[in-house]
């Protein structure tokens, strides 16, 4: 049905460096998953959905503020997984034609995303404390992917602009 291209062969390696990438058509699936996760997260701030509740999951759990609870509902898990897989798929699907230039930009963007992400995180370490810091670290799990996607798409957009002047 759907084929995942994990190419390990070295044939045409220099031109088609597209290892560990999903087929181009998957991108829309990623966008939909991400938007579903995002919409769910935002809506849940008011709705507070008890989704897939499992009563008595941990019968021996002692009720504390931060510890695991007796019952579990999987709304948070679903939200996080939708956002995570959505972003992962969007980030790592092939371009329509995947070639050496695009592979280079992909790699550059990934490095760039790491630098920016940890620079921001370093600022957060120094400026955010307590429970807020915990929230920041959760957010920080997703930001490398977000920064990577924005940077890579921007580079691709810039590279597809036609240059009008003739050299």
């Amino acid at each position, binding site marked *: 049905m759907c084929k995942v291209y994990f190419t390990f062969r070295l044939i045409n390696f*220099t031109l088609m460096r597209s290892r560990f990438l999903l087929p181009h058509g998957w991108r829309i699936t990623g966008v939909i998953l991400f938007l579903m996760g995002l919409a769910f997260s935002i809506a849940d701030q008011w709705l507070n959905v008890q989704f897939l509740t499992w009563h008595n999951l941990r019968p021996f759990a002692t009720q504390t503020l931060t510890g695991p609870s007796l019952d579990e509902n999987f709304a948070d898990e679903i939200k996080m997984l939708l956002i995570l897989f959505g972003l992962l798929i969007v980030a790592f699907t092939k371009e329509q034609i995947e070639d050496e*230039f695009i592979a280079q930009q992909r790699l550059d963007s990934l490095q760039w995303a790491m630098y920016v992400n940890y620079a921001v995180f370093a600022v957060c370490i120094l400026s955010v404390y307590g429970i807020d810091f915990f929230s920041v670290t959760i957010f920080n799990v997703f930001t490398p992917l977000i920064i990577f996607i924005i940077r890579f798409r921007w580079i691709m957009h810039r590279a597809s*602009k036609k240059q009008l002047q003739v050299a």
Partner: protein
Amino acid sequence: MKNTLRIERAIKNITQGELAEIIGVSRQTINSIESNKYVPSTILALKIARVFDKPVEDIFALEDTD
């Protein structure tokens, strides 16, 4: 490295998209090579030269800073 890709393309009267399609790369790649933002691999340079039926040196040349 400088190149005369844009000129060669004008002589042959093909667009960036057409050249990209012949070689099997994206149009962004051809665009980036033409605007000197990307240095192609040897394989890609040879393929480009083959399209224009010229030696690679006629299209790509080293600059003093290289």
